[in-house]
């Protein structure tokens, strides 16, 4: 599904990713954890194709294709979805129109006929229920005036509508209370399937109680320095990140 090899990236002159490698197979859920400033969000941005980041080395293959060679919108149409840490507001553009255009482009890319208005509405109804999103929200402008929790639920709703192959969740848990967290996690779990993979970026173990990962990786200084199963997340919760830092530094020394 996704194969990242020795990825190095910088923004302006600051090196952030320094040789990151990761293999994600279909149906797997990988959690990426790490202290602040370790490069978690950069990884999400580079995968999604933000132009401010310059990839200086390494390869990323997505479903056998060179991901780094594709413009951002083609990555999206090929099935890569990013749930943003800070979803932006687009005043005056209704969620429905926005999604209709997005679904239309993605279907076109796949060679599918556009959905009829009726089928589209049916899909909206079905998918918005997944994240307990009020029908009214679908008619409001994209994220405008949404609470933090509503924005994150809207991200998962969009993900459900666009049916990606690979979803990258960038700190989807940040700013959520426990109820919202549960709703978002339930939405994600409902979308888990043998041919859909997830990369869940989070600072806290809490989210992983709800979205149980197959693998947990620790990102530090732009590299994955430790990988394990969900028990690793629990250990991090208990011991913090310092012992990992110490381990890395002692190896270097």
């Amino acid at each position, binding site marked *: 599904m996704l194969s990242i090899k020795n990825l190095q990236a910088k923004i302006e002159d600051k090196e952030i990713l320094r040789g990151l490698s990761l293999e994600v197979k279909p149906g797997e859920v990988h959690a990426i954890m790490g202290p602040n400033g370790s490069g978690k969000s950069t990884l999400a941005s580079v995968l*999604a*194709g*933000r132009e401010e980041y310059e990839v200086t080395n390494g390869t990323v293959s997505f479903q056998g294709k060179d991901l780094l060679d594709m*413009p*951002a*919108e083609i*990555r*999206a*149409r090929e099935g890569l*979805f*990013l749930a*943003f840490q800070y*979803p*932006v507001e*687009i*005043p*005056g*553009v*209704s969620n429905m*129109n*926005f*999604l*209709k*255009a*997005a679904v*239309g*482009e*993605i279907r076109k*890319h796949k060679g599918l006929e*556009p959905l009829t208005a009726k089928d589209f509405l049916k899909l909206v109804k079905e998918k918005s229920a997944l994240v307990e999103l009020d029908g009214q929200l679908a008619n409001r*402008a994209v994220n405008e005036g949404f609470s933090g929790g509503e924005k994150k639920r809207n991200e998962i709703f*969009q993900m459900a509508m*666009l049916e990606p192959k690979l979803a990258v969740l960038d700190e989807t848990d940040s700013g959520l209370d426990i109820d919202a967290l549960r709703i978002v996690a339930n939405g994600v779990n409902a979308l888990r399937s043998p041919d859909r993979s997830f990369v869940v970026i989070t600072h806290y173990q809490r989210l992983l109680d709800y979205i149980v990962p197959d693998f947990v990786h620790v990102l530090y200084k732009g590299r994955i320095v430790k990988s394990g199963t969900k028990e690793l997340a629990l250990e991090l919760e208990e011991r913090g990140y310092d012992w990992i830092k110490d381990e890395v530094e002692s190896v270097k020394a």
Partner: protein
Amino acid sequence: MAYEGDELLDDITSKEYEFGFVTDIETDKAPAGLNEDIIRLISAKKEEPEWLLTWRLEAFAIWKNMREPEWAHVTYKKPDFQAISYYAAPKKKKQLESLDELDPELRKTMDKLGISLEEQKRLHNVAVDFVMDSVSVATSFKEKLAELGIIFCSMSEAVREHSDLVRKYLGTVVPRTDNFYAALNSAVFTDGSFCYIPKGVKCPMELSTYFRINEGGTGQFERTLVIADEGSVVSYLEGCTAPQRDENQLHAAVVELIAHTDAEIKYSTVQNWYPGDKDGIGGVFNFVTKRGLCDGDRSKISWTQVETGSAITWKYPSCILKGDYSIGEFYSVAVTNNMQQADTGTKMVHIGKNTKSTIISKGISAGKSQNSYRGLVQINKGAANARNFSQCDSLLMSDRCGAHTFPYIEVKNKTSKVEHEATTSKIGEDQIFYCLQRGLDEEQAISMIVNGYAKEVLNKLPMEFAVEAQKLLAISLEGSVG
């Protein structure tokens, strides 16, 4: 109102100015230059009554003593008024019994503009008065409207058939002395639309005029007069396109609206005249005076404009709120790209008691363009409890364009209330990236964001034209982010 993504894409792929074609019809064109003889020629050609010729000549005398205004935030090479031909009419000028008799070339022009009259009739229930250069060629729906006593015809015809009405109202809202271009227009106007809605009549359809400048090197001086008598209601739309030409073309129109007691006029404009090329060569100079008079109590005048074309736009559709409880509204989207310049806004003059005005202006600047909002809110002494709300937003699409706001507020009555809000923002790279990440391309993203930004105004347009206006915004801003 949603546009269909595919349609929009199709439109966007046609990169050149879409309406850049020239219709090949023989035209009857006056020699270049302006003097009393030319004015006499225009008046004679149009078989006008003596009073109008006198009126024109007086205007010409006024104009000769006026100077071109220089206060607007625009720079351009002043037109040579002696190099312009002031009259161009399609030669085959006989009265038509039906639209089928129209010159086939002219029909083609209309088809390219997307206003096939039959289509309009059948689909939109819109009456179209098509103005090509200076002479109104055909007016549809006239009979249907006549049954209700509504007069909707070309200004030339109105001058001949309804001389008293024209004489009573012409120049009452925009006097000949008003400004340089209004005086010039009064001297040489060739055609335009005339509309009269009798007492208590609600006009059952949108009245629409398509203006089009066709002949190279001609100025177009439209004169439009809309009168809504007591308790009547009318919605009027003008759409403008001009073919691509290298020399600048002058357009100096005057539009006067009069709303009597309890009457309501809604006037909508979609303007996409040729803006010139990327380097600012060519394009239309659009120097227009538009003003409405809310003469009677509880009358209402509402201006909605979507301005995407012209090299230079200088235009302030205004409302004189004379009647008590009268209402003035101004909703505007002005887009400038490349080297375009726009200085546009409104004036709301509160005279009557309890008068109310609303101004919503959305400027969008791209490329190296300059986009200015200039507005006056004036509350006179007697305008007790007058209310105004103004909101002026600017959206910047590049680092090289300019957005400017010049609000003037004069308040002479203590019981009045005036509110002004203004924002300036740059189109967010975050917003564009968000759209890209959902599978939209950059053009779609910009179109969506800009249309969302302008939605408050677009929603005020009659339904059929809102879709067209949305597409226009997208086309005008092609490749404009940077």
